[in-house]
């Protein structure tokens, strides 16, 4: 903390912050690609080609975790349907990739994707129009989840649905979408979803260079998303959101519109989730209705709480670590994974409510007090002393 400022705030955009941010971005955007492209594959430092999309996937998950943390960790809105916005962004990207296949599908139909030919459809449904254009598809990636969140949020927040009720209806929303997307006549490929993608903006998806490009795009996307979230959370609006989490009615009596503040942050969050989904799909190669499944959204909440909600770095860290554990455990001992995940959630909630970042903060506090003999006692002890003085 900077001593001497009378305001009690730290500068959120300090040189130290930019230094850490730049260092992290250099590792993700420069170091990993160099280790992949220019280091001999048999070297211990090499990042093999198969690892690149996996890392890219983690980055997309980290971005999704950021989006949930923005609404849950800061505004106290526990959305258990955030996977829906991710999936919708993914579907928009999937539709673009389907249109790119052109005549290279199994049926070789120049007008329709394979699954529509299979269903004996004669023409392209109206909601598929325009998806051959990259720019249009990218616009939809943001617009579709954003619009859904706006309408859903407007109805929910205006009627003052909060807490567990809101969690339940968000859960219902993603479940309903899952059931809808499972239906063949919805026009999104039914339970098979969209797959067999060939290329993106003219680059072959199977090429290692394309995959590296997508990975780098995910890393840059995550960096921008992080800066955006930080800008929101350190602003005065960020403090209004924290205040909403603590005492919503008090915020209203101060004259702030709780509905508008929540709606804003919920919509921004959904757009971020949508972009994360759009970056995820080309790296994974498929999008199907199971991405809407409520379990995904719950797992997402676990990443955030393990990392430490209310801290943006915690959300990203949690997403990375839990998914690393998932990748390893589901191949090493698949039967343990769900117990591990459940146990992790219970443990974090009971013992470390502030997550990994909270533990790190505690450790730093203990160490600083050990090294500095005359350090002040914990802040919570002081009110009693102050009362006695008064």
């Amino acid at each position, binding site marked *: 903390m900077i001593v001497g400022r009378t305001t009690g*705030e730290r500068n959120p955009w300090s040189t130290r912050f930019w230094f850490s941010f730049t260092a992290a971005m250099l590792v993700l955007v420069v170091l990993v690609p160099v280790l992949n492209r220019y280091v001999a594959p048999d070297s211990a430092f090499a990042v093999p080609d198969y690892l690149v999309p996996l890392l890219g996937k983690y980055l997309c998950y980290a971005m999704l975790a950021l989006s949930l943390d923005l609404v849950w960790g800061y505004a106290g809105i526990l959305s258990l349907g955030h996977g829906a916005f991710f999936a919708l962004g993914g579907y928009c990207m999937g539709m673009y990739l389907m249109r790119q296949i052109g005549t290279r599908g199994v049926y070789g139909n120049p007008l329709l994707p394979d699954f529509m030919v299979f269903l004996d459809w004669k023409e392209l449904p109206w909601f598929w129009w325009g998806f051959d254009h990259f720019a249009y598809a990218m616009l939809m990636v943001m617009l579709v989840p954003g619009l859904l969140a706006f309408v859903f949020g407007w109805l929910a927040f205006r009627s003052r649905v909060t807490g567990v009720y809101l969690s339940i209806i968000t859960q219902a929303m993603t479940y309903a979408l899952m059931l809808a997307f499972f239906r063949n006549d919805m026009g999104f490929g039914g339970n098979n979803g969209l797959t067999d993608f060939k290329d993106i903006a003219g680059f072959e998806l199977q090429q290692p260079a394309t995959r590296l490009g997508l990975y780098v795009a995910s890393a840059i996307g995550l960096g921008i998303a992080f800066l955006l979230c930080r800008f929101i959370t350190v602003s005065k609006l960020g403090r209004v959101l924290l205040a909403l989490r*603590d*005492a919503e009615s008090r915020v209203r009596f101060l004259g702030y519109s709780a509905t508008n503040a929540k709606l804003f942050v919920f919509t921004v969050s959904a757009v971020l989730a949508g972009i994360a989904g759009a970056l995820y799909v080309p790296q994974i190669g498929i999008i199907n209705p199971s991405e809407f499944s409520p379990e995904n959204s719950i797992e997402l909440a676990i990443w955030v709480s393990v990392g430490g909600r209310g801290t943006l770095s915690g959300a990203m860290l949690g997403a990375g670590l839990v998914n690393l554990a998932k990748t390893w455990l589901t191949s090493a001992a698949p039967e343990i994974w769900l117990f591990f995940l459940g146990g992790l959630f219970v443990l974090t909630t009971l013992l470390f409510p502030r997550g990994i970042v909270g533990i790190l903060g505690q450790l730093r506090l203990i160490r600083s007090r050990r090294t500095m003999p005359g350090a002040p006692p914990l802040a919570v002890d002081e009110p009693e002393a*102050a009362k006695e003085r008064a």
Partner: protein
Amino acid sequence: MTPSPAPHPPPEVLLYLDGVNVSFDGFKALNDLSLVVEEGELRTIIGPNGAGKTTMMDVVTGKTRPDSGAVFFRGSADLTRLDEAQIANLGIGRKFQRPTVFENLTVFENLELALADSRGTWRTLFARMALEQRERIQATLTRIGLAPHSRKPAGALSHGQKQWLEIGMLLIHDRQLLLLDEPVAGMTDRETEATAELILGLARDRTIVVVEHDMAFVRSLGAKVTVLHEGAVLAEGSVEHVQNHPRVIEVYLGR
């Protein structure tokens, strides 16, 4: 239901309630309540539990919609048609019975959110604190005696300090009408005394309505008293007048 054209009160009346009814599941919390508070007045409202004191504040601040009746601010603003945020922006501030401060924000940040400034979501996102606002916060911190605790999370304050912080949050905004719901609940005698002084100081340039149980505190304010009972006004006048009022004695001492 067609709203009957409500009679507009004269302009020096700041707060005007006429024939207000509120019922919860058949229980009449407010029963044809009529109350007039004039500009610049300090008013105390007393009454036994369930007399409708808090419900009255809920109606004025938009938390509860009355079933019928008229509620006007400054003669023209119909408070029954506005929501909490809009009413707050008209210049009506409220302190709750239980101190509600934002526990995870620092004392300084609590006051920052209470500052008179644009409340729009977009404006709030890009807000920059002006030097003059910073000074205003410092001055308020000094006035409520919390300057040494400015960087502490509000959740770490003692009960009395939280009450003061909440009063500070009303103070900093310069609102025209303050509604204080039991401002000295849970305070020590010395804190109560200091609070009475603070309120008398504040009352010099604004209108204040205080709901209180503590009769010693009510006496020390020396203001006009309104006694509520079963959702309606039972008596009104000086402290001596209401204390000698036979119906008030009957209600307070039981039948």
